[in-house]
């Protein structure tokens, strides 16, 4: 395998940049450019980086396989931040034989070398991608292998159920204390419910991981763009252009407390042309489709749009009112111009998704691949329950095994002789 290298800190300005190398040539390459090379591993040593056009003070540390992040020999340079220095380091090392790492390649090698199971590795990626506190904690959960532990727990329950079924099938003449089909159904149902709860938390988890998508809709001149500005405020986070449509669409985000609010299709909110006004209805429908919640901005007494998404009616320009009418449950009076009640609106959105009520434990299932595996497992168990009524035990075991395998896909393990071991551990069998 090649020796890979990558910048581990974000591109751009910063005081320190970390360049990481992994592979059997790492030490050789590092020794060629850094002096004096540390004489023992896990020891950060100050020295000089000799690059092509200049040298620079830096620190270097090396790790010996298998006691490193990837399980291979590794070297890290901690050098001055800025594209200049780190770029030169990369260039030099590549010239000496290193290869630019692909996305996630360090984690992949860690997985291959048994340093991580799949969901740990994904946890790290999620941590890196985390843009909000919640997502950070979800990533942390994965890293601590909470998902692995939860699924292994459920898998163990399935193993017990399977062992009972298999014992019944392979030892029909023994008087084993084996559950009847009805009892097996009950146990399967409880596993089904556990998977279901896991999935429900996933829904919230997804929002929390990726952020809550918010559409701002309303007629022209109700103040949508000023509302947007007020919501984004000084804390405008990421602006991402979504390509692929003829009209410009934008997604702008802001972090509120520990969760990310993504405002969708914001480009359209800024237009004031009549032409674009006419396209407004279509755009509105599109935005609403993408949203998790819709802010319908109205002024005065206007009727609101009808849709089945969660809705908050934002009555703007409250500064113009002398007396504030009573707020209904899903409405709020604000003044985008003066910033009145903008924080309250954000809190309202936050509360709607009960983000505050989420505990650390709820943030276990946030990764799309994991959600898929759990859903498959859930489907298989549902089929097993159905099969228990409509077919025979041998079909039921097929579905239970499928569920077991799907869960195994989360951590990267597969079935082994566990079931058979369990049978003999539990039951007194034999001629």
């Amino acid at each position, binding site marked *: 395998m090649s020796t890979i290298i990558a910048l581990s800190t974000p591109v751009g300005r910063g005081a320190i940049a970390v360049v990481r190398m992994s592979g059997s040539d790492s030490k050789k390459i590092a020794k060629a450019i850094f002096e004096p090379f540390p004489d023992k591993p896990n020891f950060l040593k100050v020295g000089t980086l000799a690059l092509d056009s200049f040298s620079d003070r830096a620190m270097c540390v090396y790790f010996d396989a298998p006691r490193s992040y990837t399980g291979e020999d590794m070297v890290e340079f901690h050098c001055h931040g800025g594209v200049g220095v780190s770029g030169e380091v990369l260039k030099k090392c590549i010239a000496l034989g290193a290869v630019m790492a692909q996305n996630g390649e360090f984690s992949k090698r860690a997985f291959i070398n048994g340093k991580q199971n799949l969901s740990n590795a994904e946890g790290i990626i999620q941590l890196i991608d985390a843009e909000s506190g919640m997502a950070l904690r979800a990533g942390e959960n994965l890293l601590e292998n909470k998902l692995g532990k939860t699924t292994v727990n459920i898998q163990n329950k399935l193993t017990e159920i399977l062992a009972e079924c298999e014992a019944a*099938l*392979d030892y029909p*003449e023994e008087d084993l204390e084996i559950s009847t089909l009805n009892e097996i159904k009950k146990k399967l149902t409880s596993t089904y419910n556990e998977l279901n709860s896991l999935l429900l938390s996933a829904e919230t988890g997804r929002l929390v991981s990726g952020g809550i998508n918010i559409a701002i809709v309303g007629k022209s001149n109700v103040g949508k763009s000023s509302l947007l500005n007020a919501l984004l405020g000084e804390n405008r986070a990421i602006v991402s252009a979504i390509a692929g449509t003829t009209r410009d669409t934008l997604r702008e985000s802001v972090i509120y407390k520990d969760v990310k609010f993504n405002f969708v299709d914001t480009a359209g909110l800024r237009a004031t042309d009549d032409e674009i006004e006419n396209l407004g209805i279509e755009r509105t429908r599109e935005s609403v489709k993408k949203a998790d919640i819709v802010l319908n901005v109205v002024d005065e007494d206007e009727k609101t749009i009808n849709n089945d998404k969660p809705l908050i009616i934002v009555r703007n320009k409250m500064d113009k009112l002398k007396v504030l009418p009573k707020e209904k449950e899903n409405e709020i009076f604000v003044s985008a111009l003066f910033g009145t009640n903008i924080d309250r609106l954000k809190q309202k959105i936050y509360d709607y998704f009960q983000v505050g009520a989420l505990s650390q434990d709820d943030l276990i299932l946030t990764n799309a691949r994991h959600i898929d595996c759990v859903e498959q497992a859930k489907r298989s168990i549902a089929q097993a329950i159905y099969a228990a009524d409509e077919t025979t*035990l041998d079909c039921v075991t*097929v579905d239970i095994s499928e569920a077991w395998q799907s869960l195994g896909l989360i951590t990267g393990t597969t079935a082994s*002789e566990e079931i*058979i071991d369990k049978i003999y551990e539990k039951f007194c069998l034999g001629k």
Partner: protein
Amino acid sequence: MIFNYDIIVIGAGHAGCEAALAAARLGAKTIMFATNLDTVAFCACNPSIGGTAKGQIVKEIDALGGQMGINTDKSLLQLRMLNRGKGPAVYSPRAQVDKYAYHANMKAVVENTANLDLRQGEATDIEIIDNGFRVTTGVGLSYDAKAVVICSGVYLNAKIIVGKWSQKVGPNGFSAATKLTDSLKKLGFTTRRFKTGTPARINGRSIDFDKMTRQQGEDEMPPFSYLHENVPSKIRDCFLTYSTLATKDIILKNKNLAPLFTGDIEGVGPRYCPSIEDKVVRFSDKEKHQVFLEPEGEGTNEYYVQGVSSSMPAEVQYQIFRSIDGLENCEIMRDAYAIEYDCIDATTLFPTLMSKDVNGLFFAGQINGTSGYEEAAGQGLVAGINAYRFINSLPPFILTRENSYIGVLIDDITTKPTEEPYRMMTSRAEHRLILRQDNADIRLTEIGREIGLVSDERYMKFLAKEKEINEIKKQMKVVYPPKKLQELFSDKNETQPKAGLTLADCLKRTNITIYDLQKHFGLFENASKQALEQIEIDTKYSGYIEKQQVQIRQANKLETKIIPPDIDYDKIQGLRIEARQKLKKIRPQNLGQAGRISGVSPADVQILIVYLMNKND
């Protein structure tokens, strides 16, 4: 004197007989040795053939042209189907046989088979010579052959143990084979000790059957062999009774006398065939254990006491057996005993059961660390066929996990080192729904025909059945309008169909059977029971069978990725240490087998895939 043969089979037990018959029937000049000719196809333990997963194996042996099914049908005392009510995929036929008739019937076939010689003699030495092997027997005669199949069962350095008494003798007092292990070691094989046990035999006249529950054979059971039409299934009965708290007490009080617990037994015993002392100690909160009394033969009073194998001292055995309900006054005719024996590590064998290190040397049966007559016979058949193909430079014959239980068995023992004697179970077969006792002929008859073991008679029968099934299948595809289906559906409490349905669709409904279709529409009147059963199972299971087919297709992908035999695992970076060790030891043939080795994770398989891909670039 030196005798010349094509193939030598050492051991005439269940494995040996299948191997020798297959080789001889294919045309090889074959000789089979037994330390005592009375051991030919001898049922040393349970006087029964079949059972869960084992019954399926017997059907497979029969479909391929082996002898076990035919011989069982000829020696029946009782025939039943296990697991009725748990689904056709796990139906398993089980027979009680007259063990003496079983032996005599098999011996007669062996004595009368062309190309096959049966000889009493202990093989004491195997030497590699030009073009093959020289086997020398105890009395000093030598036999040369191009291939040898070793089916020594539990006879290698066999030792019987009853309490403090032991004797270096084989099962039932037959002579042990005391020299062959050394010869194998000289050829580079390592052996280890396994153990098994057998219960006492009791005189039926001293059994109080009134205290027990009678267990009869089933009416109208299909025979084991596809060649036979009807067999008697209810000649003798078995009896069910229970051990008592007294049994438990006696064993616990005498624990210090049990060789199992004193360490006098060296070999590893099977978990699933524990002695009664083992059961009582491990599951100490169970008050009683099931005991079955099984008749050993028509010409004898002897009963086999299933569930009570033991190596306790003889005196203690009397106490134990007499504490069982109905056996208070029992006369023991033969003691229960434990037996230790040498066996090899089957992971040193190819899936053809030929040694990876010594060309032309095959191993089959309990010497490979398996247990059970059926498991042995299946291996014997495969080894015999491959010995013939080897000496004739024909491509090897390999059964797969997807087409037979025998395939699962051989793949398991050649891939995963077993720590204890291996017993086949349905849960070992991931494709259990397809590997059924009712379709062994559909799966394997053509294969057996290609090899040359399936006779014309068998083949014709098979073709006729296939034809019949295809005709019925055609009729099942006909669409019936809802009006015509009304009566049937209301009769069977099924919701009325809104559109027309094929008969196959109707059959998928839980409450409708193929006999209902027969009755309501007057179809398939002359169809055989077997054909109808086949269609019904296939149709009702089609959803689940399709699920398994998908899994088979996925598994097959990795099976076809051959690993070159000269691969150097030390050169592959990224393999975990344990995986590398196991891969080097077992030398899997393909990626599928590699993934099944314990200690080789999916990640390691990924690395192999990448490595092989890069090599091919």
